[in-house]
Structures are given as structure tokens and as C-alpha cells.
């Protein structure tokens, strides 16, 4: 655990209104009280490489504290004491309608994604988001590198769309609109409030005559309207509080879809800012299949095609170039989170960071033996914890642990059979 730095976090922020933007809640459970700061909020960060990570370069062959780092992990080795590599974890029954459907259940663990009768379940980040609520301006931030597709699902199985523009995100987080814009937005929200109230009444009046099946649907609509109303009240309250000012320059979007790495860099750059201004405590980032040849030196095939390397050496060489750059940026992100003080430690100490993929072997679309790395979160780190390759341990056991680390009283999630000790 890093020691307290001389420079408090607040000096990174300009003075105005920042104190209000940093509400401090005691959300700790006693189990974690030993290792983390009680006054500083806990955070969650999930990052998924949806096209997998080549296993030979990722999973160490040896286990325990003195595991030998593989090609990818050696990139991160300076942070070795701050993360744990876990292997032999997966969700069961991830064969879906489409071979890549396991990406929609990475954070939810619902079975048979996309097959007839499938309905997705809540993702861990949205559970955390519901837990924290509007204690921050954004209960969660959902990001994607290419499309609005995300891995964040509500309790009713609805996908929360991802923000793909770092510039837009920065504007929402940190920039103040003109007075006219703010007045217009306030008016729109206030009109919206009276409309929502009216809609709840409309739904109620229809419920009276509806059949049982229809009433169920109307109930869902009614509940959605009520939740939207509550959200709106919270959003209105946040409108009255100034946004935190940050020293960072607003990012300029990379409009080129082939610039996968550039987009990852921009997103990774915003994550520490979001946390240190306490704009949100929950962030999920989906690194998409961009469907084009990425701008990476020495690569002339698209990443999806390369992920289906079929053990073709020339393809694996190219795949490695892309994945190496992704892991290099993870190294930078870990560094940035470790540099910034938070409470008695660093932002990373306060953040349960999950990095991995929904595919273990992307070449055959196999969703077993997933690559998993957990950093920060006040856990004991520095090890490779290997589970049985043939009989995987539920990844959900880890999810239970991650949720608990946020101070949530959960003892089960999805397919969990318990929790996974990281002490």
C-alpha cells in the first residue's frame, strides 16, 4: 500500500464548488476497514477486451507470488504488487446465438446469451451504480471505444448505452454551458417533470382495465416512469451544483475508427479525472471490435480476423502487436491511478479494477479460462491464483468479492457459489 503523499487531492482541483462535489460516505464493511481508508469513497472500474487476449502471452505458467510474468504481464510488472492475475475462472453456459454473445454477459453471467427466451440480468457495475445512486453527479459512467454497445445492463435486462466520445464525456463532466443553455436545460427538465407525472397517471388509468399480462407490462412502464422521475429530481439537484474544474485540457476525439489505440488512450486518460473529482464511482469500458484494420505498426488485418488466428503464426504476430499496445495503456492507467493520492493511499487503492475479456480462446470463441486481472481495491496482491482449467471456478465468486469491496452487503451474484478470497 502506498504511503500518504504530501500533496492532497484537492490541490489538483480548482477551488470552486469542489468540496460539494466530493461527498464522502462511509460505505466500508469491517472486513476491509483494515486496509482501506474509511473516509474515502470506494470505486469500481471494469475494462473488457472483447476480442480476447492471446493466452500464451497472458496467463503465467507458474502460480503463487513468484510466478514468472508472461510477455503481456511483464509490461505491467512495475505494478506487480498492486494486482492479482486469476486464471481458471469463467461463467457457465455462455454458448449463445452468436459466437460473440458472451460479451453481453461478461458483467452479468446470464446463461445462453441471445438464445430463445434469453433475458439479460443486472451487471455488477449497475448493481454498484444503484448502490451509490446520485451521491455523485453520475451514478455510473459507461464507455465504449467504437459503438454505443455496452456490457452494462439494468435489472430488467436493458443495455445502458456507452458513451464513445471523450470530448462529449469531458463536456458533461467538467464544462459549464452558457447561461442560456443552462436555463433551457432547466426548463426542459422541469417540463419533463410535469410530463412524467402525467404519464404515471396515464399508465395508472390504463392498468384498471388491463388483462393480467398487460398489467405486468404497464407496471414495468409505470415503474420506469417513477424511476425516471426520481432520476430527474436528482439530475435537477446536481444542475444547481457547479461542476468540478480540472486543469486538464479537453480531449479531442479521434474520429478514425481504425485508431483503436488512440481511442483507448483518450478514455483511459479520463478515468483518473472522473474518480479524483468524484464525478462517478463506477466506470465500465468496453473495448469493441472496430471491424477495421487498426492503426498499429505492422498490422494489416482487422483485429477480429486476427483473433481467429487458427494458430497461424503470422496472424499471432500481428495480434500480439495490437494487444501489446492495449496492455501498455493499461500500464499507463495503473500508473496514473497509483500516482494520485486518495485518502491515506492512492486512487488505485480505493478502486477495485477488473481487466479481462469475455473470451478465453477467441480463435474458437471459447468463453472459458478467461483472462482476469484485479488491481487495487485494498486486496492483497502480487500473485497468480490459478484455478482448475477443466473445472473452472465461477467468475461470479470474484464479482461477489468485488461488490463487497465497495461496501455492499451481497453474498451472491449470478452463478456464484461463494466469494473468492483476495486477502
Amino acid at each position, binding site marked *: 500500500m502506498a504511503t500518504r503523499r504530501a500533496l492532497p487531492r484537492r490541490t489538483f482541483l480548482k477551488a470552486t464548488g469542489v468540496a460539494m462535489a466530493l461527498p464522502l460516505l462511509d460505505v466500508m464493511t469491517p472486513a476491509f476497514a483494515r486496509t482501506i481508508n474509511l473516509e474515502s469513497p470506494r470505486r469500481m472500474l471494469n475494462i473488457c477486451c472483447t476480442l480476447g487476449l492471446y493466452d500464451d502471452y497472458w496467463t503465467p505458467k507458474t502460480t503463487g507470488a513468484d510466478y514468472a510474468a508472461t510477455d503481456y504481464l511483464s509490461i505491467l510488472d512495475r505494478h506487480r504488487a498492486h494486482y492479482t492475475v486469476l486464471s481458471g475462472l469463467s461463467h457457465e453456459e455462455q454458448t449463445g446465438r452468436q459466437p460473440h454473445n458472451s460479451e453481453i454477459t461478461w458483467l452479468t453471467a446470464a446463461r445462453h446469451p441471445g438464445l430463445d427466451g434469453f433475458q439479460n440480468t443486472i451487471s455488477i457495475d449497475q448493481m454498484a451504480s444503484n448502490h451509490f445512486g446520485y451521491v455523485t453527479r453520475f451514478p455510473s459512467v459507461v464507455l465504449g471505444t467504437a459503438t454505443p454497445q455496452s456490457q452494462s445492463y439494468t435489472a430488467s435486462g436493458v443495455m445502458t448505452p456507452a458513451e464513445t466520445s471523450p470530448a462529449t464525456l469531458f463536456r458533461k463532466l467538467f464544462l459549464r454551458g452558457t447561461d442560456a443553455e443552462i436555463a433551457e436545460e432547466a426548463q426542459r427538465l422541469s417540463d419533463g417533470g410535469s410530463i412524467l407525472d402525467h404519464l404515471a397517471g*396515464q399508465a395508472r388509468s390504463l392498468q384498471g382495465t388491463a388483462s393480467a399480462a398487460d398489467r405486468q407490462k404497464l407496471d414495468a412502464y409505470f415503474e420506469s416512469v417513477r424511476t425516471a422521475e426520481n432520476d430527474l429530481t436528482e439530475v435537477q439537484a446536481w444542475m444547481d451544483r457547479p461542476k468540478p474544474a480540472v486543469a486538464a485540457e479537453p480531449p479531442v476525439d479521434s474520429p478514425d475508427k481504425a485508431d483503436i489505440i488512440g481511442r483507448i488512450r483518450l478514455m483511459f486518460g479520463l478515468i483518473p479525472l472522473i474518480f479524483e473529482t468524484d464525478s462517478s464511482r463506477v466506470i465500465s469500458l468496453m473495448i469493441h471490435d472496430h471491424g477495421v484494420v487498426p492503426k498499429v505498426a505492422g498490422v494489416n488485418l482487422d483485429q477480429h480476423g486476427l483473433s481467429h488466428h487458427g494458430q497461424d503464426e503470422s496472424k499471432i504476430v500481428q495480434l500480439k502487436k495490437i494487444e501489446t499496445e492495449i496492455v501498455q495503456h493499461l500500464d499507463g492507467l495503473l500508473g496514473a491511478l497509483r500516482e494520485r493520492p486518495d485518502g491515506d493511499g492512492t486512487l488505485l487503492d480505493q478502486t477495485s479494477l477488473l481487466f479481462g475479456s469475455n473470451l478465453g480462446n477467441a480463435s474458437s470463441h471459447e468463453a472459458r479460462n478467461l483472462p482476469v486481472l484485479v488491481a487495487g481495491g485494498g486486496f492483497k496482491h502480487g500473485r497468480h491464483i490459478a484455478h482448475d482449467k477443466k473445472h473452472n471456478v465461477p467468475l461470479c465468486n470474484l464479482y461477489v468479492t468485488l461488490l463487497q469491496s465497495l461496501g455492499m452487503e451481497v453474498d451472491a451474484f449470478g452463478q456464484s457459489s461463494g466469494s473468492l478470497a483476495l486477502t
Partner: protein
Amino acid sequence: MRRILAVVIILLSGTTMSLATAFEAGVTPLLEASCLVCHNNDAVTPLNMTKVGHDLADMNTYRTWLRIYDRVDRGEMPPVGIPVDAVVRDAALATLKRALISANMERRQGQRTALRRLTRLEYAYTLQDLLYLDEEVGRALGDSLPAEADSGGFDTVASKQGMSALHVRSYLEAADRALDAALKLGKPPEVQDFKSLYRDSAALSYMFEGTFVGGGIIKKLDDGVAIFFDVGSTYTMHSMNEGFHVQTPGRYEVTAEVWRYQADTPVILTLYRGVKQGVTASLDELIGSFDLVDDERRVVSAMAYMRPGDLIAPSVSELEVPEGPQVNYFAAEHNVKTYTGEGIAIRSLAIRGPLLESWPPESTTRLLDGIEIDDDGRVVLTKTPYDHIMDIVRGFGARAFRRPLSESEVTRIADLARPVLAAKRPFVAALKVPLRAILSDPSFLYHAGEPGELTDYGLASRLSYFLWRSMPDDELLSLAAAGKLRDQGVLAGQVERLLSDERSTRFVRDFAGQAYRLYELKATSPDGGLYPEWNDLLGTAMALESEQFLTEIIKENLGVGQLVEADFTFLNRRLADHYDVPGVEGQWMRRVTLPADSIRGGLLTHASIHKITANGTGTSPVPRGNFVLASLLGQPSPPPPPGIPGLEPDTRGTTTIRDQLSAHRALPVCASCHQKIDPPGFALESFDPIGGYREKYRVSGGTTMFGDYEVSLPYTQGLPVDASGVTPDGDEFDGFRAYQRLLLTRKLDLLARNLASQLIVLSTGAEIGFADREAVAGLIAGMGDDTYPVRDMIHEVVSSDLFRRQ
């Protein structure tokens, strides 16, 4: 008979004890004799029958027994080698059938379709038609809603549709934007009239000399410029480079003066809409492609919806490159001055718009019904503001809710404007509040209907959302108002009218997009080294082929067998070249009668289908076999049991996927499904991932470095394709053609039943339940034409109880 009744009653009573008794009598003998030998506690199969409960009210238990019924009924189980007594089996099936029907009926309580909401697409089309908006505006509004869940089948199915606070917030925001787009007051926007003469282009002047990397690829001519490479258009020729910046979103007309240059064969000019990406531009949407067949200058034109930030780029496609030294756009030497290859000359690019039919636009005048707009584009009220709002809510509300509103409803909604009026905000701001409320109201967002026969208004909606994917028009609504729509003759007349209307292409496109998964056409990008002939033009033509083929089948009322085999298709020259069909000139799609020796004709020969069932590198018989089983025959296979690894394609050319599958099929647990999945997949091995016909697999040639760039080497020919197989019925086939014949002779009724089922699911928003199966079979049998003409089938669907009842 008494005994049957007893079984049904016992099953309905829901106690495990009694159910066990019923199964004891009917089903258990079969289980004990033929099933439990494998499906037991030590089972290697995913199904352990000793653990399956009997409570069919439980959805999972119900599904399990349904699958058991189907697999036994189709003779897939018990597998070869396990003895089965036909009498025992039939008795078990009869018991199960009765139980499943009862459970199905019990669950739905007289209502097949629960309240279903507009899909994203229906929402988009509905806003377009309701507010008289441009199609592109509607589409963007639909895209702003939460995505539909990816759960297979059709997104109209109520039980799969989500609702959340996110939806509600999105509806409010989309309504806001829709009303902003519809209500255009004030002065008309300035029409931009832009023309660039490329010869005088300032942006291009430095390109002609080419003393830097990426330069020297455009040749200056006396009255224009010549281009030779599609790569250049992403950073040289586009309208933003030439200084055109869109001010107002809208429709723009794009024209170019072009001719063939240094070419003897037709060359293709393409026009794209895109956006700037750093120093280059993305070419996002192909808005036009033109064959240039001679050296005469001609004017080509296309229409595009453009927003600020959009650009237009001309490009070239498929120009022949001569042998010998090439123009090298990675180096400054070898520029186009001495190049002799085919090119296209362009004199000018002109863009004009936004094209306004009237001002204020129809979207505004229709919405502000009864209100005058003066010459400065200001509203002039003729009554009190509240009275105007009442009028508008009454009229607009009836179209939005697809039924008349009661006066109390009108008042309740209009009253939302009162506080806004009281606060002295502008009239339009006050009007927008009730209109936003209407566009988020459950009566707008959901398809209403009580259990029982649909009302006239319910029928009008179901029909128009079926065949137009949008709201009923005035004619349908007035027929409903007059109570005439339920008349069989009137209804049939409306089916004809709707199918003949342009809007029915929305139905065909959405049906093909979902039923045949054409929405996934662009999901993978083919390996450029293995499939260098792939490009956008080909991809666009592929999608159009399938859509226009299906449209033709409906229009000409052709038999359902045409889906499998037909002597015609729709082609342009690009796709005709791909298919090796001679005599097709020009880039427009048209109906082509296929030569007798062509392997093409029928959906399974469409490159679109081959592409969506392959990944970019290779093909596998598994997804293709599953496509035939699920999308065409309606008999999808269950997912593989847990722990079975997928197949890895081998692009090194040492083994074929067929060899790998044979090993796979040696496992009995795999064989029971793969004996069905693999044969159609094998037959389709004759088509590569982009739909080219092949006799040998292509093998990757690897890559080489070219300066700083890695480029693919040409592919080589590998192992031969073996497209033969044996169907589970024991029919052998030696290739794709023979398999096609087998489908037609053996599976035609299954094909018809599945198509009818798909149409019913899409239109009614409810799956075909076990209890509906006989109705569907009856519908098909009742057609009285064993070729099952598809337009007739649509009529049968609409007049069936499944369609006309909730």
C-alpha cells in the same frame, strides 16, 4: 376419452404427485425403455431426465419437455441403436402433446400477445409518418433509443421487450428532438449552391506534382482531373477539401460531370457520404455508383441527406492496373503523369441544398393545423392559445394513438400546457409540452388490445405495422372508424393496397434483416489478403439482391420453393461479375434470368447469406447448417453442451473444417445434433465467405513489408471443397445442387410452415406457442396450392384467427 380428460385435469391441477401419476401412465414407459439409459444421473448429455420436474407451469420445465417432445417426434431421439417401441412412443407423445397444449393455453389465458411496444424501427418509421419527417431524421431518432435485446427471433415479441427508466428518458428526449425537427418557423434556410471545378482546385494544386508521400496520384487534364485509385479519395477529392460546409441538415442533390479515361471497358464511379477523420475522410455511405461506358462526358447525380460536418467524396472502383511500374503513393516518384492504367476523369462536383418543397415545411403546417404562419414565419393565432392546443391535441393525438381520444383525455393532455401559458412562455413552447407527453404516452408506445377479437382500430394498427412497420394511414383509420375493416373483403383489399405501396419495402427489409439476419451483413470485414475482390459496392449489391428478390416473390406471388431455388435473381454488373453471369451492364439492380448452368438462384445462393454465415477468414458448416435449420426450416438446434470446445478454422490449408467436424461427430453427444447441422453446411461449402463459388479453398499467402507498410501477398489454392453429404433421412447428395433438390422435394411444407410462422410472429408480437402449431399447419394446408404462393400466404395470415385475435 375419460382417461384423456383425467390426464389433462391432473396436469392442470399442478401437484407433482398427480402429474407423476399421469406421466407414469403415458410417458414413463418410453423414458424407462429408451431414454434413461443415457439421460440419467451419470449422463454425459446435458439432459438428466431424472431431474426434470413435472410442473409445466414452470417455464424451464415446460421448455425441456417441449424439446423432448420435438426431438422424439422428429425421430431424432432415441438415437440409432437404442430400441424403441412405436406404440409406447406414440402413447408418450400423445400424453405429452395434450399436457403441453394445456399448459400453453393455461399460461396465456386467452391472450396470445401481451401488450407489446413499438420496436426502435417502428418508432422511427412512426415518427417519420406521424410528423412528416425525413426518413433519415426518423432513423436517427430511433437509434437514440435503447437497443433492442439480442435474443434471437423478432424484436416485436412482447415477452422479450425491455422497459426501463432509460427508455422513458430516451422517449422524452427523442420527442423533444422530433418536435424541433418538425417545427420550423422563421425565415427559410439559405440554399447552398456549391460547385467545384477540380482543375482549378486550390486544395488539389499541390497534389498534381506529387513531391511528397501520398501525392502525385491525381492527374491534371485540360478540362478536369483524372483519378485512378480509390485510396486517394479519402484525402483528396472530397467536398470539404473543396470548401463546402453544410449549414442546414436536409436533402442535397449531388451532381458530377465525369467520363471514362484511358479505359476500353466500363469503369465505376462511386459517390460517398462521409465525415472528416483527421487528415482523411471516412466514406460511410455509398450514395450512388455509375458505370461509365464511353469517353463522352456525362452528368451523374445522387441524393444524400447531409448534416453539418458531412462531406461528399467521389471515388473509383475496380479499375484495371497494367503490368509494370506502378504509381507508388507511398513514395514521391512514379506519379500519374506517365501512368497508362484505367481511370475516371471528373470535371466538376456540385452540391445543392437543402432542397425545400415548401416553406414552412409540411411537417410544420400539418402539425400547426388551424394556425396561420405569416411571411416572416411567425405563428398567427385565430383562437385562444389553449383552444388551439386542444384542437391540435385532438387531431394529432388520434393519429399518434391510432384511435380517437375521449374529450377527457384531450383535456387532460392539453392541460399540461396551462402552466406554460400562465408563465407567458411562447405558444410553441406551450404546445410542445402536451405533444411531448403524447409521444411518450403508453397509448402511443404500446400496441393496445384486449383479449379476444381485435377491434377495427386494433386491426388497422396490426395490419399497418405488419406490412409498413408503421402507423396506419388516414384510409385505414377511416375504415376503422366506419367499422368496415373487419369485413373480409375490405381487409383483403387493404392487404393488396399496403403491399403495393412503397412503404412495404420497410417490411421486406425488416423481415429479411431479422428472419435471414441480413442486418448482420456488415458485421465482419473479409480478410483482404484472401478476398481482395470484396468491397463496399459488392456488399451493397448483396443486400439489395436479397431484398429485391424477396420483394419480387411477394409481388409476383411466387411459391415458397423459390426461396430455395429460382431461375432469376437481381444483379448489377458488379454482382453479376461475382456470380459469373454474363451480359449485365451498369450499376443499377435489375431482375436477371439466370443461365441454365448457373448455380445461382434462391436465397441459399445469395452472397449475402454466405457472408453472414461466415467470419471474415473462413467458413464453417456449423453456422451455415444452423442457418438452414433455424431461419429456413424453423428447427434450430440446441446449443452445444457445456465444455465442448468450438472449432478453430485453419487458414494454413492443412486440414479442412470438414475433417475437423468428422472428428467432432465421432462423439455421440455431438453426433445427435451434428447429423442435422452438418449436411446443409457441407452443401454450402461450395461458397466462400463472400459468396464466391469455389472448388478449392483459398490459402493465405502471408504478408510482406512494403516500405513501412505490411501488405498481403496473393492467396494460393488449397485443398478441394467437398460439398457432399448425407441427410439425417439417409438421402445422399453430391453437392449443392443436389442438396437444393432434396430441400425442395422433402422439406417444402416445412419451409412453408416456417415462413408462415415467421410472418405471424413478426406481425402479432407473440411466438408460435405449442397450442398454435395446429393452427399454423391448418393455415398452410388450407391454402389449397401445394406450391404455397407467398402473397397468398400473407393474405392467409392476415385473415387467420392468430392475426385477428389478441
